[in-house]
């Protein structure tokens, strides 16, 4: 029999036995009577379920990280520390004096809640940003995305509110001060995060297992090739909640150091497939500009706090946003199995709709991005909503224009074919040609014919083709001034 599940919630150790693997963190919390976190969509889009988890920030420190509780299995939080809106502060009640957390106080006083249903989730997302170690007051005051107090509004990009129109929520966020020295959650940042514990949980239909070591994982995956690998559960959770997928075996890979490395060498940046997107963003710190351009547009902070490049590429979705960018960066993937490792260029990785070259028992260990990059880059995501939407079309362009000529160019596309693709014909139409409006017009005509766009509810096929066509004039307009400068050098 498996060990009981142990999770620290709001400072209190909670123990559960016999919990089926399908039960997500949200439902488990609610079953404890902690009903602050709500289900609004069950697919990580609305944030009403957001809670805080202590996640590692190097070995010695932690970071309060906001996550969607509706997606991951509760079992994956064994040994973890979770804080919910109830744990941040208390409303007044008979025998209890009101003691609101600063985030809660600002929201309550400024009209940040109307119906209140989304509010506990907003509170948790906001608290994570409140405690973010890098957050610091800015000299140049507030703008539409960042407060004078350094509050990055993208922290709330995964939370939807249907009542307020967001203005009072933004005001509340921008008015937050610094955590006080004695604030227990701030003090908690000074210690390492708990290690995710190796655990196996079984029900009649399914099992959840977190292998102890990378070797153990590879062995298990070789034996059970239909197992699903799970890092942040941002895809698995949707499959489970919406399409009621009940996989026979889920293998958690979220903790293995072999998959959690991010390192630089002279030639490549190597990004472990289990590094979360938020960590990638932070650790790269703008060193790969095209990835830096991608990140704010990639889902929401809540999702990026859990999702990984490995998951985004491994599901081989034609509309994943990482692939077009990594194609333009000419990235490669390190694939691992019990048999050993091999490196595959990303341009050769996808073989069909949600199919890849990966053999049974093989997984993505790391993404390798060459350090020497084409200097002029752009990422265009075409979607209905400006942030936290799924691409209708995604275009990533990396070019080297020298002395007025396209020396080299790589273009990655998403949303226009069964797989992410390189726009090879367009690249040919640009390579070696002069940086002129004529070249761009010729190549744009070629670009319009790339892929096999379809009509769906995100965009019409016609619009998708038009967006391909328009992306080159847009790129040209954006960099015209820069390149003219370069040409006169």
């Amino acid at each position, binding site marked *: 029999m498996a060990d009981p599940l142990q999770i620290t919630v709001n400072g209190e150790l909670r123990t559960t036995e016999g919990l089926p693997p399908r039960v997500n963190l949200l439902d488990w919390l609610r*079953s404890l*009577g902690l*009903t*602050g976190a*709500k*289900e*609004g*969509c069950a*697919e990580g*889009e*609305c944030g009403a379920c957001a809670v805080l988890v202590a996640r590692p920030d190097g070995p010695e420190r932690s970071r309060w990280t906001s996550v969607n509780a509706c997606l991951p299995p509760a079992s994956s939080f064994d040994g973890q520390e979770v804080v*919910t*809106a*109830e744990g*941040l*502060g*208390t409303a*007044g009640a008979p025998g209890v004096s*009101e003691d*609101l957390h600063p*985030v*809660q*106080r600002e929201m*309550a*006083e400024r*009209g940040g*809640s*109307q*119906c*209140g249903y989304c*509010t*506990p989730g907003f509170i948790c997302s906001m608290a994570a940003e409140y405690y973010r170690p890098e957050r610091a007051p800015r000299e140049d005051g507030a703008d539409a995305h960042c407060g004078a107090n350094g509050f990055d509004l993208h922290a709330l*990009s995964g*939370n*939807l509110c*249907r*009542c*307020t*129109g*967001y*203005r*009072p*929520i*933004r*005001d509340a966020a921008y008015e937050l001060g610094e955590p006080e020295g004695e604030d227990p959650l701030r003090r908690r940042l000074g210690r390492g995060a708990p290690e995710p514990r190796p655990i196996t949980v079984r029900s009649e239909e399914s099992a959840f297992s977190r292998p102890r070591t990378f070797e153990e994982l590879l062995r298990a995956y070789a034996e059970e090739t239909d197992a699903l690998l799970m890092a942040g559960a941002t895809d698995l959770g949707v499959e489970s909640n*919406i399409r*009621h997928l009940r996989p026979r075996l889920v293998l958690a890979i979220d903790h293995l150091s072999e998959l959690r490395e991010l390192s630089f060498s002279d030639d490549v940046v190597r990004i472990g497939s289990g590094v979360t997107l938020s960590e990638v963003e932070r650790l790269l710190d703008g060193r790969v500009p095209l990835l830096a351009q991608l990140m704010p547009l990639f889902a929401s902070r809540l999702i990026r706090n859990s999702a990984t490049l490995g998951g985004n590429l491994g599901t081989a979705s034609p509309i994943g946003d990482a692939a077009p960018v990594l194609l333009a960066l000419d990235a490669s993937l390190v694939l691992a199995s019990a048999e050993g490792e091999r490196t595959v260029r990303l341009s050769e990785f996808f073989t069909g709709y949600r199919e890849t070259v990966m053999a049974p028992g093989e997984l993505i260990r790391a993404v390798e991005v060459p350090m020497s990059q084409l200097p002029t880059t752009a990422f*265009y995501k075409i979607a*209905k*909503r*400006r*942030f*936290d939407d799924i691409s*209708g079309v995604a275009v990533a362009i990396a070019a080297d224009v020298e002395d007025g000529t396209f020396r080299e160019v790589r273009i990655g596309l998403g949303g226009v074919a069964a797989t992410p693709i390189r726009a090879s014909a367009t690249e040919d139409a640009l390579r070696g040609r002069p940086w002129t409006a004529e070249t761009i017009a010729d190549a744009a005509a070629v670009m319009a014919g790339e892929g096999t766009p379809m009509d769906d*509810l995100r965009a019409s096929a016609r*619009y998708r083709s*038009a*967006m391909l066509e*328009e992306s080159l004039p*847009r790129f040209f307009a954006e960099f015209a001034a820069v390149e003219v400068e370069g040409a006169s050098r």
Partner: protein
Amino acid sequence: MNRTPETGFGPTRGAGRGVGSPESHESAAQHVTGTALYTDDIAVGDGRTLHAWPVQAPHARAEILSVDVEPARRVEGVVRVLTAEDVPGTNDAGVKQDEPLFPDTVEFYGHAVCWVLGETTEAARRGAEAVSVEYEPLDSLVTLSEAIEAGSFQGRRPVLSKGDAAAGLERSARRFSGSFEFGGQDHFYLETHASFAFVDEGGQVMVHCSTQHPTETQEIVAHVLDLASHEVTVQSLRMGGAFGGKEMQPHGFAAVAALGATLTGRPVRLRLTRTQDMTMTGKRHPFAADWEVGFDDDGHLTALRATITSDGGWALDLSEPVLSRALCHIDNAYSIPDVEVQGRIARTNKTSQTAFRGFGGPQGMLIIEDILGRCAPALGVAPDELRRRNLYSAGDITPYGQPVRHAERLEDLWGQLEERGDADRRRREIEEFNAANPHTKRAMALTPVKFGISFNFTAFNQGGALVHVYRDGSVLINHGGTEMGQGLHTKMRQVAATALGVPLGRVRLAPTRTDKVPNTSATAASSGADLNGGAVKDACEQIRGRLAEVAGRRLGVHTEDVRFSEGTVIGLGQGSMTFDEVVRDAYFQRVQLFAAGYYRTQGLHWDAARMQGEPFKYFAYGVALSEVEVDGFTGAYRLLRTDIVHDVGDSLSPLVDVGQVEGGFLQGVGWLTLEELRWDVSEGERRGRVLSQAASTYKLPSFSEMPEHLKVHLYERATETGVVYGSKAVGEPPLMLAFSVREALRSAVAAFGPGDVEVDLGCPSTPEEVFWAVRRAREARRTTRDHAAPRAGASAESAPAPAAVRG
């Protein structure tokens, strides 16, 4: 009254005052700490609770030949399957006998055929998968145009008319015609529909329900169960958003839960998943309009003739009153001498469309705003100017015969907004910006709102309350309105605090229940504060009158010279005592310390057949000025700034009112620019299925869609006589301030073209729609440049031949 009616109140909790004070939501501390309970939080289990899951039909329309529930019964954890045979009373979820709770015929894709109760949600779901239903698929009508072509209509076909539209058009110097079809909107309240029912020790059916209309939920539960109303109690503690979506739609779900509870003897919880909610419940009505409009040489509207058709979905629900309100708002804020508008409701195989903030008003108003936006270039008048020129003024009468009370406020609001929004300077800056930027264009638009307040159906305009003063001087109020986030309870506490002259902290509010205040109207039509506030005030004033006599005797003054303020009772010139002391005295003198309050709106009359009368107590006014920036490469846009001046009368609760204005505005922006409901209209197997059925495929505004700068100003010196403390309703009207955004987009698109041709913009005006409009504008510019030909719009010349703006 000391208040700062601008956006951006300082921290305000704790002011603790009555009417006019900016107070936080009365549950704010519970909201932020996650301790505010919603229906499904109450249902969190004691282990006895059963969970319900529907069997949803996979056809747009089909005969149900047989339902075999046996396989479901064999699924572990399944306790019961509910079918039509289980209904002891009336098998109907509505009030018009056209919405069977368990249908014989599938009328839309996703229609619930029966419900499975399980020990867990998982068991109920598996049980539902196991139910075997045999269908005979039938032909279906999915789109509005299919229904119109097939002549598939339902309900009444009202005609709104004033003067002689045909003659008016004939006389018009300039005539245009066109058509316009636009989409609906999913409510997407964050809390999906939820009910929790059980039978208590006395055999009474208790239903906790996320409902805006507890009385009707109670009545429908009763008629399904064949019980009298006094055997059913419905409580609506609070809702996680409703927006009209919980006015009619919760009843069937409550009835299913209650039926399950009576049949099993166990509590039953029913909460829809997001996809169930989006595929089973009604939405804002989409509309199509064909119109002809006339103007004089100065751009004054002379006549309007139109046929407007709503897509009502499979059942009538509230489609008739929604259509009435659309007709009564097709004038928006504009004077039109001759009018004839025919209305009809198409019957399609879709969810049954229902109330949604504005209730048809937004759809009617959108039609006239679209007309003005499209015709302005051909008239050679700037759109803002065209709108201003046509505003109602004092003495004008609406097409349905009601004088436009306070019409002069429109011009005043307009002038104030021009000034506050620094409009002239910004118009010049925009011109400069556009001249310098070939790929990005900016534009501003100013649009008005005039919205009639009261239920069109006169009987609904009544409210009730029950106010208790306890012997220690503390106050508990019950009223018939429900709290969905709009701040009604906050306002009701403030009304009671002011009416009794006690600090806000002395007033508590009890949950809304049908056993406290009976026969309530839906909390809808923006009327919650007017009706229930009137009733609460009435109850408080009865009590205060009795207390004044007690205090007057004690203080030795005439009753009329007793004042109640902030917990002190003052006898003018004769000293004072505390409210609590007066209450204690009153008790010992055997004076009744509780009262039932009642309010009905005076002076309303409405002839629904003739579409004439005075259906509204007053009008709420507002104006908005929005500036957008459009990217020519993609059609993507940003909302740079919005300024609003809105008339809420004397605000009962300014923080709440500004919240309603801002939230309504952004919800309107969502409807008009982003939120796109898509159905499968193919002839394939999934015909009729809602494609946008989840948060991943149906996009609400997120923080990136709010204006980068937003300033709301509440109109001052705005007392509305005859309404509680001079206030006006605020729930719905601000939604329509969002027209300013769509019209600004239209003007920005025009800036890519020659400037004086019509811009036809799809709705919702998504980036894709804006992109195609930009392409057309650019082509028009090329055509103009290449051929120097007269432009299509500019040549739309005078009568008799109507120059078609489109089709």
